[in-house]
């Protein structure tokens, strides 16, 4: 594990905001468990819990907390300087932080989604959700990492992306769905384990290609932005 990744991971779990990662996955699995215990048919709760909560909220919000936590908070408090004043290629710094963000997001979101999928019907659905969440985690992490470098308020920008772009605009302007990571996650899940809950105009090919583009483009832009990282003078 590189030193940058070590510091990043320690920083992520050493801050209180790491606790924010817990409630959403617990809520997701808890709701599914409750429905299962009371023998409510998955047709009744599957869409609301898996799609509306799991894919539209838990996955992107976890990715936002982690993605901005690995870099945005260091930029915010100035500790990033200690990493940047080293003869390290900016690519290596971003890749180390990206690896931490993507893997933590994957674990925190794919595991509860897998459990929810199993509770809702089959291991196949669970597996499909886990695979799709992993793809989503990688794409979201790259995007939110980039937000940390282009805005002083990455969490706010990320929330606008999740709530307005993915949540609201998709309902009115269907074209935006082609540029929404959430839709790719739905498309991938539905193709691996077809179910009646999910509906998206995005094809599997588009989903895979666009996820890759978000991942690569987000990372490349982030590397470039970090190369021109400027410090604001405090007394000047």
């Amino acid at each position: 594990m590189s030193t940058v990744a070590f510091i990043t991971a320690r920083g992520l779990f050493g801050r209180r905001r790491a606790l924010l990662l817990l409630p959403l996955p617990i809520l997701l699995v808890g709701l599914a468990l409750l429905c299962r215990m009371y023998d409510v048919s998955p047709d009744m709760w599957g869409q609301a819990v898996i799609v509306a909560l799991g894919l539209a909220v838990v996955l992107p919000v976890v990715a936002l907390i982690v993605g901005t936590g690995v870099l945005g908070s260091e930029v915010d408090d100035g500790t990033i300087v200690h990493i940047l004043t080293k003869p390290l290629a900016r690519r290596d710094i971003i890749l180390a932080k990206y690896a931490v963000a993507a893997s933590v997001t994957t674990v925190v979101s794919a595991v509860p989604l897998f459990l929810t999928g199993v509770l809702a019907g089959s291991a196949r659905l669970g597996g499909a959700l886990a695979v799709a969440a992993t793809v989503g985690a990688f794409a979201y992490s790259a995007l939110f990492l980039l937000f940390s470098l282009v805005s002083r308020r990455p969490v706010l920008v990320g929330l606008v992306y999740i709530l307005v772009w993915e949540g609201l605009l998709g309902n009115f302007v269907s074209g935006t769905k082609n540029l929404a990571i959430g839709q790719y996650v739905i498309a991938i899940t539905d193709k691996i384990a077809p179910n009646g809950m999910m509906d998206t105009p995005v094809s599997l090919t588009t989903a895979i290609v666009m996820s890759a583009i978000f991942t690569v483009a987000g990372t490349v832009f982030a590397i470039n932005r970090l190369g021109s990282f400027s410090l604001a003078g405090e007394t000047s």
Partner: protein
Amino acid sequence: MTAQTLPAETPAATLGVVDLVNVSRWYGNVVAVNDITMSLNPGVTGLLGPNGAGKTTVLHMMAGFLAPSRGMVTIDGKPTWRNPAVYRDLGLVTEREAVHGFLTARQFVTACARMQKLKDPEAAAQRALELVEMTGAAERRIETFSKGMRQRTRVAAALVHEPRVLLLDEPFNGMDPRQRMHMMELLHSLGDRGHTILFSSHILEEVEQVAGLVQVIVAGRLAASGDYRKIRRLMTNRPHVFAVRSSDDRRLAVALMAEKSVAGIEIEATGLTVRASDYGSFTRVLPRIALDQGIRLHQLVPSDESLESVFSYLLEG
């Protein structure tokens, strides 16, 4: 003191020249740094100027954290902007005291040594911690440290790879007198060993105790540059303005006008404004004259002693 525990070899003996050539930096319409050309050589140089003069902007450009709007900033001929390789020879201690508080001092300095890809990071960290007298608290988390301890830990981290060039932004802020003296000795000793040290300060006394050479920045421009004694002389020779109130201002004014150290007097309703050409002689002669004339002095206030006025005088000079 621990300054003597520096290893014997002198890795910084050869180069370490920081050059600024016609460097300007502006933010929109605001010019923060205006056409500065300076060259820093091995030894300790103080970057002196009032708050807001552009010291931090200059330091950040030297450290590769800000692109000059115009001009070139290089270390040993290599540009600092968008060139992470310069950090092999460069250490930076920023004014902002942000550190990874969840790490212990030793973990933090060792992590810096690792990121510098040093052969023996643990030994390098130990050496750097000894240098700043932080070995006693090295196993404590940085978030439990006082401001001075944090500062020393950050200096250790910046020094762990023994860079040829060390830049420090207001390094004495928040230090107690003993820590301050130790830091001064440390900078002295690094300078003597051939490192190029530049530290910024808005306090002249700090600078003159450490640096032989001074670069004075006022309002984004290089106001004076060179030996601090010369600059000190300029500062002491400037006219000093005093506000004086007494039991008989007019008679005092007449008596003072006969003194060589007095360059001018204005009589106002609130008292006298006296311009003295020599600070020392005037303050010695005033009580004597008052005594001779039987005048009671109610007030004597130097009215232009703010650093800003000293610096603007330099700028005019």
